[in-house]
């Protein structure tokens, strides 16, 4: 066995660290999807009539739609009637304070390394934790409330701020936008809502931690972030899922709205269960994320570190409607074993003097397939639009694949669009160089990969960056090409 093979072997036999389940009594919907299930979910959540109608409308549209086949991913046909669309930990009504939260849940989060307790105050992170489908507890709500910031679960927002939800929900990602967005709109169970009023700079990172616990449950959360004029918020999303043999479906929708001079940073570290080394199990991560820079001089920045999921289909995008608005997309996507990722972004330039920047770093190992798919669109009235795209692929071993699908669509002659792409392999020479200085193989790979991904990682808030670095190291321990 050559050195490469040996290292790859070690690397591919690494197990998913977060593969455990907790016995939580769950309140579930029966398997299957029909109008009754949609009504069941809506009733469970005690929703107003307009929302039920909204869901039913989405469901009817979804039934007419076809699952997309254009992504460069392959998976067995999903039986949508074999999935449970609602699962909530059973323990009375929504908790009023942390004391009321099921201790076992708290333990779950502690295993994940996130604590809902006051410890977070020190790190300045407010957490809205979503386990299966219901938001369990939201910390720091009071501190934020003083500034007029709303940060709560989606269900709470529906109850407490129906006018905001009604106004903004579906305005960036319409219910019939795509197959999975329609599905989400019909059955979404919970998620997070953040509202930053005019001129307010959110003093702490807002954070959501998603986790899929119950077997055979799809998780369909929705996130809506509304940043009013001149406001700023940095939002973090982290995800893990327990290890299961069956594939689990995750179809989320994230909508961001930025008014004039507002800035929203959205960071994701996605670590859903990727399946085992033979490609069994794992999460199907079909997510629609989109932001609109509505006002002039607004900015939306997506940063994602994608290490998990069996299949990923995800294109966090920016609609640059306001003049001088800015969209950014920074991505590290790692695939290993039999993972497949088709991810990238869309930058749609509508306003004048709009700017976008894309930095995508793909890392493929094992027998995985990693695709970047990006679209830069410059509309007719988008004078002086600028885009710079950089798409790099790093390969480990000779059985994986890296693909790039850039689409550029320009209707205004003043546009300047640049696209750079590179493909490289982690060299045995690089590893040897590190080893010769006393650095072991695993640390060497971690060092090289983190160096490669640095441009993206440095976009993450400090605390998250450290976690992401560890995650990269963990996913790619000891791999060479």
């Amino acid at each position, binding site marked *: 066995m050559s050195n490469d093979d040996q290292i790859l072997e070690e690397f591919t036999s690494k197990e998913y660290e977060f593969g455990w389940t907790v016995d939580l009594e769950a309140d579930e919907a029966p398997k299957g999807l029909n109008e009754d299930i949609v009504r069941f979910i809506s009733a469970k959540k005690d929703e107003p009539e307009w929302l039920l109608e909204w869901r039913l409308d989405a469901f009817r549209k979804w039934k007419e739609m076809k699952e997309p086949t254009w992504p460069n991913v392959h998976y067995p046909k999903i039986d949508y009637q074999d999935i449970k669309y609602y699962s909530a930990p059973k323990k009375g009504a929504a908790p009023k304070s942390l004391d009321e939260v099921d201790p076992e849940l708290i333990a779950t989060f502690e295993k994940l390394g996130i604590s809902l307790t006051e410890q977070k105050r020190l790190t300045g992170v407010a957490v809205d934790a979503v386990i299966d489908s219901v938001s369990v507890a939201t910390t720091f709500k009071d501190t934020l409330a003083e500034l007029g910031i709303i940060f709560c679960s989606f269900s709470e927002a529906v109850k407490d701020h129906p006018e905001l939800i009604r106004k903004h929900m579906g305005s960036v990602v319409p219910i019939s936008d795509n197959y999975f967005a329609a599905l989400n709109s019909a059955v979404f169970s919970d998620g997070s809502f953040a509202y930053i009023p005019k001129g307010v700079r959110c003093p702490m990172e807002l954070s959501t931690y998603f986790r899929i616990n119950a077997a055979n449950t799809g998780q369909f959360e929705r996130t809506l972030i509304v940043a009013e004029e001149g406001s700023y918020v940095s939002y973090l999303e982290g995800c893990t899922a327990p290890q299961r043999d069956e594939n689990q479906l995750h179809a989320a929708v994230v909508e961001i709205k930025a008014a004039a001079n507002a800035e929203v940073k959205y960071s994701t570290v996605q670590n859903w269960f990727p399946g085992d080394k033979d490609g069994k199990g794992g999460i199907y991560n079909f997510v629609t994320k989109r932001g609109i820079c509505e006002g002039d001089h607004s900015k939306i920045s997506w940063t994602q570190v994608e290490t998990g999921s069996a299949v990923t289909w995800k294109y966090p995008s920016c609609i640059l409607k306001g003049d001088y608005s800015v969209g950014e997309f920074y991505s590290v996507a790692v695939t290993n074993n039999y993972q497949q990722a088709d991810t990238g972004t869309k930058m749609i330039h509508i306003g004048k003097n709009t700017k976008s920047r894309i930095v995508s770093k793909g890392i493929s190992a094992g027998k995985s397939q990693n695709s970047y798919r990006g679209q830069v669109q410059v509309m007719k009235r988008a004078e002086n639009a600028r885009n710079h795209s950089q798409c790099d692929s790093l390969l480990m071993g000779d059985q994986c694949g890296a693909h790039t699908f850039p689409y550029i669509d320009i209707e205004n002659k003043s546009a300047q669009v640049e696209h750079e792409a590179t493909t490289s392999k982690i060299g045995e020479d690089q590893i040897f160089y*590190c*080893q*010769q*200085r*006393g650095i072991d193989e695993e640390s060497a790979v971690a*060092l090289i990969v983190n160096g490669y991904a*640095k441009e993206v990682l440095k976009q993450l808030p400090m605390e998250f960056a450290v976690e992401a670095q560890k995650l990269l190291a963990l996913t790619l321990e000891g791999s060479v090409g």
Partner: protein
Amino acid sequence: MLSIKNLQASVEEKEILRGINLEVKAGEVHAIMGPNGSGKSTLASVLAGKEDYEVTGGEIDFLGKDLLEFDADERAREGVFLAFQYPVEIPGVSTTNFMKTALNQIREHRGEKPLDAVSFLKRMKEKMKLVEIDQSLLSRSLNEGFSGGEKKRNEIFQMAMLEPKLAILDETDSGLDIDALRIVANGVNALKSKENATIVVTHYQRLLDYIVPDYVHVLYKGRIVKSGTKELALELEEKGYDWIKEEAEAQA
């Protein structure tokens, strides 16, 4: 310190080293010279533990330990350092970060605590002077966009940081102008002590004007065919390698 007995090594079935014998004691400087393709760099790589080379026979004893039992990183932690002929680029990783990782792994191996930030910086500053290297260079991605001279000075800087027992300089003079050569050589000389040893692998005598060897060995077709003192190097400079080749062929 280092005892090489009848070392044979091949790459892709091709035999390159055909029985090397070499004794290096602490405090000594040995020069390995020889024409192109004689196996000089192979010897350096084999000592450092590069996997591309298969050791087919012989033994290497380093401070009482069988070096061939160790992987490259373990050898480094035992005190073997190779200054590369072609230092490798690692984008996004600064020399500072690289050295911190390396030094702490070596310290861990020795059962020492990692250096705190202040001590690490102090050590960096001290060693930077030695090779006249600038802080800004150490903050840049390792070897990326470095000039030939900067790369080689960076190698010696790393050597200074890690304080190896045995330093192997593989064609460190290649691609250096005379000023860079002097700086690099001064650095190496400053690091010399009674406790460590240096092996200088070079094609030309030039470097040996600055780093004066105790012994000079000539490698030809995978064997050491002649050993002597520094005068041997001068003789080679004057007469070239042809007479060595002839002598070797005649003996064979």
